[in-house]
């Protein structure tokens, strides 16, 4: 069974991370969110309604819940980058001018120059394909962004750019974001809440500071804690009673007052 007895509530406006070992059911879970897959039993409720109650509504739900696939190759199929990004907005029935505006804006969000618009999406590097796939989803301006491993294959600058973009997009429109990630550091930096999957079931759920407290349990199911957390666990072992941290920012807050800084050398 790819998914077994999942009970999950996603709150409007939150950033929810889904983590779990390979094959734990993360992708299966999120393809249920917009009705790409239908569960054999149980329901998915969106804004108070069963998404499968009305087949016609389902199409609109797919515009409201923008899902970006784990492998961009499965999402890109048009002969130009322009057509690929325009695909979603076109299906929504937007007029040409608005489509054009959204295509260019989304491409710019991904930090790619307009010269990419006429290229074939298949003649791009792995990370560039990922950026086009993300741009295609952003162009629909969905209420909920569902991103399956959105940073896999992105270089660090592109990853930070995507995170900044998600943060400012949320600030402007209150979008709900659900993302899958194998990077514990990314999860600690971006998520308000984490759902941990193990063998098709939800194993843990909570804020990053709650979930990452369970380093041993996470290790046992194929996961880990952020590198900075490991450093702090090491310091604790060496006799420093620091509180455990999950981001470099919080680590600096604790250590800065204790270390002279500036003039210190290795």
């Amino acid at each position, binding site marked *: 069974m790819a998914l077994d007895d999942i009970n999950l509530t996603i709150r409007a406006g939150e950033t929810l991370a889904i983590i779990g070992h*390979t094959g734990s059911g993360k992708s299966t879970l999120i393809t249920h969110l917009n009705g790409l897959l239908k569960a054999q039993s149980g329901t998915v409720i969106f804004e108070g309604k069963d998404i499968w109650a009305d087949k016609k509504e389902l199409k609109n739900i797919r515009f409201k819940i923008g899902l970006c696939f784990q*492998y961009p190759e499965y999402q890109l199929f048009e002969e130009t980058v322009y057509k690929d990004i325009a695909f979603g907005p076109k299906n929504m029935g937007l007029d040409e001018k608005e489509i054009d505006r959204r295509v260019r804006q989304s491409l710019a969000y991904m930090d790619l120059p307009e010269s990419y618009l006429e290229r074939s999406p298949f*003649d791009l590097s792995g*990370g560039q394909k990922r950026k086009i796939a993300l741009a295609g989803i952003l162009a629909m301006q969905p209420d909920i962004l569902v991103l399956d491993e959105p940073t*896999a294959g992105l270089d660090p600058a592109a990853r930070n750019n995507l995170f900044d973009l998600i943060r400012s997009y949320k600030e402007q429109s209150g979008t709900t974001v659900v993302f899958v990630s194998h990077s514990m550091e990314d999860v600690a930096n971006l998520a308000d809440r984490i759902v941990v999957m193990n063998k098709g079931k939800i194993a843990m759920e909570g804020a990053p500071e709650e979930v990452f407290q369970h380093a041993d349990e996470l290790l046992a199911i194929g996961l880990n804690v952020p590198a*900075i957390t490991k*450093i702090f666990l090491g310091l604790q072992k060496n006799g420093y*009673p620091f509180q455990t941290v999950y981001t470099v920012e919080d680590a600096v807050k604790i250590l800065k007052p204790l270390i002279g800084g500036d003039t210190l050398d*290795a």
Partner: protein
Amino acid sequence: MSFIEFSNVTYSYPDTKRKAIENIHLTIEQGEFISVIGHNGSGKSTFAKLLNGLLVPPEGCVSVSGISTADEEKRLNLLQQVGMVFQNPDNQIVASVVEEDVAFGPENLGVPPEEIRTRVDDALKTVGMYEFRLKAPHNLSGGQKQRVAIAGILAMQPKCIVMDESTAMLDPIGRKEVMDAVKKLNREFGITIIYITHFMNEAVDADRVILLDHGSICADGTPKEVFADYDAITREYGLDVPQSYELMKQLGVNACILGEEECILHLTRLLGENGKA
């Protein structure tokens, strides 16, 4: 003669004017463990494909063990010497049973059946997948699938393995399993490893780091040499640094510390009695 030699290699894809690889000149010795980093589109995958003759440069020359990759007659020999593992664990496995998948490469090379048997068993043992030899690959985890893919290459007795972001889709344990397997192949069998990655904490595990930027090599040295220039790495090249180094930087400590253990030791020394209850 070095194991791998690039002399003045430039490559553009058909119908493009941009150069994906520009004037690369470098040598790699047998047994090196090299990571390759660089922004999206910097030319890492192109570099990888030039290594095993999937792409042949119109300008300059790439040679492996003294054989030019342009030599059509030696193509099969080249593919056997330089194996590649890609990003997606799901589309590298061809057979429906693990051991058949691993046997696929040597079968194509015309290796006699009894030798294939030993090669397959040895390869699976080396990557820690021997108990899974009769399993169906689709029932394996991503990290296990990638190790089967590595075993398939190993059974061809390569001199070099190129990993093109082979851990990008893996969970933390899967990443570690694959990295450990690759380190073992390097140390125990002297297989040259070219490890392409966007994870800086993986890149610093190599003995040598090559940094690509817009198709050219911008830095080539030990991890500490390449990461020494924090500003260049984080601002110019679109990359970042491991969290231990980032922490040092933000604390105003001038030390290129790339690993967690080293970071804990260093902080303990800096803190002394400060901060102890």
